[in-house]
């Protein structure tokens, strides 16, 4: 086994993933502000660069050059660890996302499992950030974030198990290859489970909740908890949380498009490739942004009710129906 090509490959992937995460965050910041602007009948960033495209760059420069304050009362180890951990986890997950037929950093058999394994630590990172700040708003917010994540991980994993049953694989690339054209996408009821449109909906709602996006942004509820778990973070500490948040939004939407919308496959079955993956994912991200700027925030209780009383029963029904359908294809 020769070593150097391997090392260069790894380095290339690391650099590529990091660059993509950075660019993605910049693009999403811009997109979010632009879309929010137009929804609100204003322009959004415009004066900084053409169409305001340099706005995220300016923000980045600003955040980097800003003083980083570690509050005196904070647990400085946990406080510093949290943003880095958030960021690292989000980046790690990108390693198994297939952007194209061969454009995947590490095509492993259990990619789906890896994504959920690492995303499940993410909430721990948020928690230690909020706890480490030792600020009451941050602590309350951290507690909220944990309860919310735990509640929504259950229906999300049940849906993912359903999808694994249908595709009988945990390899993301294999899952994508099964969905050659529009008619073979898993979102349609004739491919696998008759309830899969519902499954997609539940998965999408869970993505919103898992990534702490409105209307489930209880963790950073501005009108109640100031800025939530990152109240005490300044400068790049805050910036890393932002990067991490946008990275996980992207991962969530990419997963939805891989599991249900055929990932890098073209709807017409011709010219599959990375562009399709990006188009589908960013369309979903657009919906995420659109939802955010339309609705008010739910309360913790409304959110838990939704999860335990609606999403979990529905996802269990989907699981059972799908299992039945796979074993006895006759009635369907």
């Amino acid at each position, binding site marked *: 086994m020769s070593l150097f090509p391997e090392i260069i490959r790894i380095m290339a992937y690391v650099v590529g993933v990091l660059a993509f995460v950075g660019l993605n965050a910049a693009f999403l910041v811009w997109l979010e502000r632009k879309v929010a602007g137009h929804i609100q009948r204003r322009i959004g960033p415009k004066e900084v660069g053409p169409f305001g495209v340099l706005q995220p760059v300016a923000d980045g420069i600003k955040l980097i050059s800003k003083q980083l304050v570690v509050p005196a009362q904070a647990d400085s180890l*946990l406080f510093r660890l949290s943003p880095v951990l958030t960021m690292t986890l989000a980046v790690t997950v990108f390693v198994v996302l297939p952007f194209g037929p061969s454009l995947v950093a590490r095509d492993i058999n259990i990619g789906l499992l890896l994504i959920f394994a690492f995303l*499940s630590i993410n909430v721990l990172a948020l928690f230690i950030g909020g706890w480490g700040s030792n600020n009451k708003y941050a602590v309350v917010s951290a507690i909220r974030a944990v309860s919310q994540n735990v509640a929504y991980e259950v229906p999300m994993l049940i849906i993912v198990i359903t999808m694994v049953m249908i595709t009988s694989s945990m390899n993301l690339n294999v899952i994508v290859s099964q969905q050659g054209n529009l008619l073979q996408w898993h979102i349609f009821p004739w491919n696998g489970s008759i309830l899969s449109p519902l499954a997609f909906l539940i998965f999408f709602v869970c993505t919103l909740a898992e990534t702490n996006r409105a209307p489930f942004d209880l963790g950073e509820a501005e009108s109640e908890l100031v800025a939530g778990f990152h109240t005490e973070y300044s400068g790049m500490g805050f910036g890393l949380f932002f990067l991490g948040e946008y990275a996980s939004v992207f991962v969530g939407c990419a997963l939805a498009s891989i599991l249900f919308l055929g990932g890098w496959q073209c709807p017409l079955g011709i010219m599959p490739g990375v562009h399709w993956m990006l188009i589908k994912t960013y369309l979903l991200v657009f919906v995420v942004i659109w939802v955010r700027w339309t609705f008010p925030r739910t309360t913790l209780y409304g959110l838990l009710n939704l999860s335990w009383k609606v999403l979990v029963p529905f996802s269990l029904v989907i699981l059972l129906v799908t299992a039945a359908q796979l074993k006895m294809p006759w009635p369907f």
Partner: protein
Amino acid sequence: MMPLFTVEGLAGLLFFVFVLLIILGALAATHAADLIRAVSGLALCMVGVAGIYYFLGSPFLSLMQILIYAGAICIAIVFAVMLAEPQGVRKFRRRHPIAGAGGLVASALLTWGLASLALKTAWPQAPEQINPGALEDVGRAMVTTFLVSFELISLVLMIVIVGALVLARQGRSRAGPEKSSNS
């Protein structure tokens, strides 16, 4: 000994990193006075253990380790800390130093015993380099050979969930504050 800049060498380095993670994590888990730090240490340690599993040829298990330990158990502990730890008191008093020293001695003796057992015993040589168990094999074994234990585990989990619910509710009705408001 292997040169560092080979695949095997780097893998060896990685192995040391995981061992380091385990030891650091275990140290934090046992030594930190702040419970959240201890939990973070546990999570770190478990990530290290997951790495060890990877070296033992089971990536599936290593991811499960992360998912269940770091993702589920640590979060559950965090939950308990949140529910059970009053906001004001974040640090816990240390146990009496003699207890600590005694524990140190006892555990050192145990470790030494186990280690010497591990090193002194003449383990039979591994039959051959067997292929690591694939995911499908694990799944198949679970519903064939180990069906009874699998069902037992699910039963245990079921009982645990019900039991935990009962316990938590009981606590709430006894000493929980009056929640007369809307719900």
